[in-house]
């Protein structure tokens, strides 16, 4: 087993490379001037600037949280570049206009925009809003979506084109004062995705955003807002890889989901940012606030995540179950290796009657990593007949890593039924030997066992992602066995 781990530790990050694109950057540091610079760069209306400044002033009064089971050197927020944009500023009409350097980057990542476009002719279609650093470079399929009245664009564009919607919903789920990182994001976010599904519309394709962190030392502050009107349905995919870096990169995103009556939002993430080297140097710090609200009855929000990257993951995609009979789901696979640290989980806040939530969390820890599940199930006073089922499993590889479970349950209504199951297991020598005795080597055996262990979560992913996620698990655990 130890040999196994040593080899795994020696596997290099497959997606580490740097693309040479000239950036148009703000100077390092954070103050009101920088915020005004970002807002001006983006031609924002006054209300937006006011929003940012308010968030910034609040942020100044806040302290970086330290309750999570993670240890890191706190970032110097004055040593970060808060705005950088690739030079091409005009709106691109076709793929030919995209910076060839950028296309090469996508090729290396294995996400070809051409491929995505080609796919548009067939059943499974993925509309992709490509974000490199802070500016949305290309939005595909917009017209197809527009026919149905669906708005899918960059956040910056939404501020310009759909200010009423942005003003109505932005911060309605995650207030700008919600937490330290959400406040920071509200002050300095540069771009992200905006999605609006009108009443009664079923989005005809999976919506997808690929995030990349490009210019060195640039913090990434994305903001995503998805609104599903009554009886609408949308499935959103988010996936990311980042180039190798020496210094830590801060990422503090905010994602807000709003589901109206009978609406369904399915949000899937495959996250594979640079986790740092085998000594734990470098790697992305990922502090994300993701929250959805089931505003009215029968609404449903489902989070699925496969987290294999980042040096530090601090992330709790949550659902506020406000509408009666609304449903919240959280399916998660978190893999940590070497010196990676993950503190991730969910919050299910039951407010409406007959609300239901399901939590399935699968942690896999290897190397010297630490993997924590942290989850809150809150049944409020008026939430009659609320139901929750939680299952938190941890799988350990080797004896140098840690798995931790922090379940919090608050019940203020005695009609609630809350179930919690938790298991911790090791990949057994017995299982490995059984596979080997059938001709399957250690590496393949681990991949089989881990994929089997994560099956309940992987099966929740849309087809486009399921294969990618399986491959990613294999790559993440490649060389982990001797």
């Amino acid at each position, binding site marked *: 087993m130890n040999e196994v781990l040593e080899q795994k530790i020696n596997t290099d990050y497959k997606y580490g490379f740097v693309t040479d694109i000239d950036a148009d950057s703000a100077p390092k540091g954070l103050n009101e001037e920088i915020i005004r610079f970002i807002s001006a760069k983006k031609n924002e209306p006054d209300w937006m600037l006011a929003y940012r400044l308010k968030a910034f002033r609040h942020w100044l009064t806040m302290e970086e949280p330290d309750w999570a089971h993670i240890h890191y050197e706190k970032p110097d927020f004055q040593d970060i570049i808060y705005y950088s944009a690739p030079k091409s500023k005009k709106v691109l009409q076709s793929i030919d206009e995209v910076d060839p350097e950028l296309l090469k980057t996508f090729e290396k990542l294995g996400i070809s925009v051409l491929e995505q476009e080609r796919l548009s002719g067939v059943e499974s279609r993925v509309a992709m809003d490509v974000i490199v650093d802070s500016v949305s470079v290309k939005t595909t399929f917009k017209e197809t979506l527009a026919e149905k009245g669906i708005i899918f664009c960059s956040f910056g564009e939404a501020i310009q084109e759909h200010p009423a919607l942005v003003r109505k919903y932005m911060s309605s789920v995650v207030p700008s004062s919600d937490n330290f990182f959400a406040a920071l994001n509200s002050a300095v976010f540069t771009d992200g995705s905006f999605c609006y599904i009108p009443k009664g519309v079923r989005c005809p394709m999976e919506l997808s955003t690929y995030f990349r962190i490009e210019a060195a030392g640039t913090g990434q502050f994305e903001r995503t807002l998805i609104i599903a009107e009554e009886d609408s349905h949308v499935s959103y995919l988010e996936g990311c890889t980042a180039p190798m870096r020496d210094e830590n990169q801060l990422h503090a995103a905010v994602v807000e989901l709003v589901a109206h009556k009978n609406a369904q939002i399915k949000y899937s993430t495959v996250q594979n940012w640079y986790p740092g080297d085998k000594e734990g140097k470098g790697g992305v710090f990922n502090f994300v606030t993701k929250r959805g609200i089931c505003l009215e009855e029968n609404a449903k929000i489902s989070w699925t995540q496969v987290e294999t990257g980042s040096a530090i993951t601090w992330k709790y995609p949550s659902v506020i179950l406000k509408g009666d009979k609304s449903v919240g789901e959280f399916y998660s696979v978190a893999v940590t290796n070497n010196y990676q640290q993950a503190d991730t989980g969910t919050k299910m806040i039951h407010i409406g009657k007959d609300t239901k939530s399901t939590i399935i969390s699968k942690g896999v820890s290897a190397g010297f990593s630490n993997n924590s599940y942290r989850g809150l199930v809150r049944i409020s006073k008026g939430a009659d007949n609320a139901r929750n089922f939680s299952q938190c499993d941890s799988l350990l590889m080797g004896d140098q890593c840690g798995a931790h479970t922090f379940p919090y349950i608050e019940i203020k209504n005695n009609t609630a039924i809350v179930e919690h199951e938790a298991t911790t297991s090791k990949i057994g020598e017995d299982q490995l*030997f*059984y*596979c*080997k*005795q059938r001709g399957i080597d*250690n590496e393949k055996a681990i991949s*089989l066992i881990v*994929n*089997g262990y994560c099956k309940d979560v992987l099966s929740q992913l849309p087809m486009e992602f399921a294969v990618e996620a399986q491959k990613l698990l294999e790559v993440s655990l490649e060389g982990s066995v001797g």
Partner: protein
Amino acid sequence: MLTIKNLHASIDGKEILKGINLEIKVGEVHAIMGPNGSGKSTLAAVLAGRSEYEVTQGEVLYNGINLLELEAEDRAREGIFLAFQYPIEIPGVSNINFLKTAISEIRAYKGLEQMAAKDFLTMMKEKQELVEIDRTLISRSINEGFSGGEKKRNEIFQMAMLEPKLSILDETDSGLDIDALRIVANGVNKLKSEENATVIITHYQRLLDYIVPDFVHVLYNGQIVKSGSKDLALELEENGYDYIKAEVEA
């Protein structure tokens, strides 16, 4: 096919096998019997390549190769199959996926072309009928929630799929009722050929009513103390192991 010479093996510094000598030729069925703790399962584990056991002395030649130098997975790819006494559960991994992976690895090792999906499914169906295993078991996760008998039948099904040259059945009869025993034995008999060999490790004689061995060996205290024809098994059944112990210690 298999020549074991003066094999000594220990676990955690404790010697279990104390000089095993055994010769197995292609087409033969050997039964290894013996009381609990005599080293039967250790012999199976050592041949299969379990790394917890340390071979301290002796050699094992398998079709001319030094078996002890091969990794466990390579031994399997060379055609050695161990039917486990306690088959392992692997949640979430279907039997189909598991066997597909195993066959693909074995074929890659041998430099053979990969099997077409259609051929694989045809083969599954054939073997499933041959060893009389329920189809629903095959699509379920490996051994997860299987009864003891189902697990043993699944071992025989895997053996049928992988078409080994040397099969070692470690206490495959333990925990089986008489019907399951008959089905398992039938499977083994059907898979027996002039091109392969079978080693049956068992505590009781009853399995040998169904699978008739060419040779019976008695293992006691890490050594083969007696070898003979199938009649030896009946003799053991009648007199118990005590008389062997008495004979050895005399």
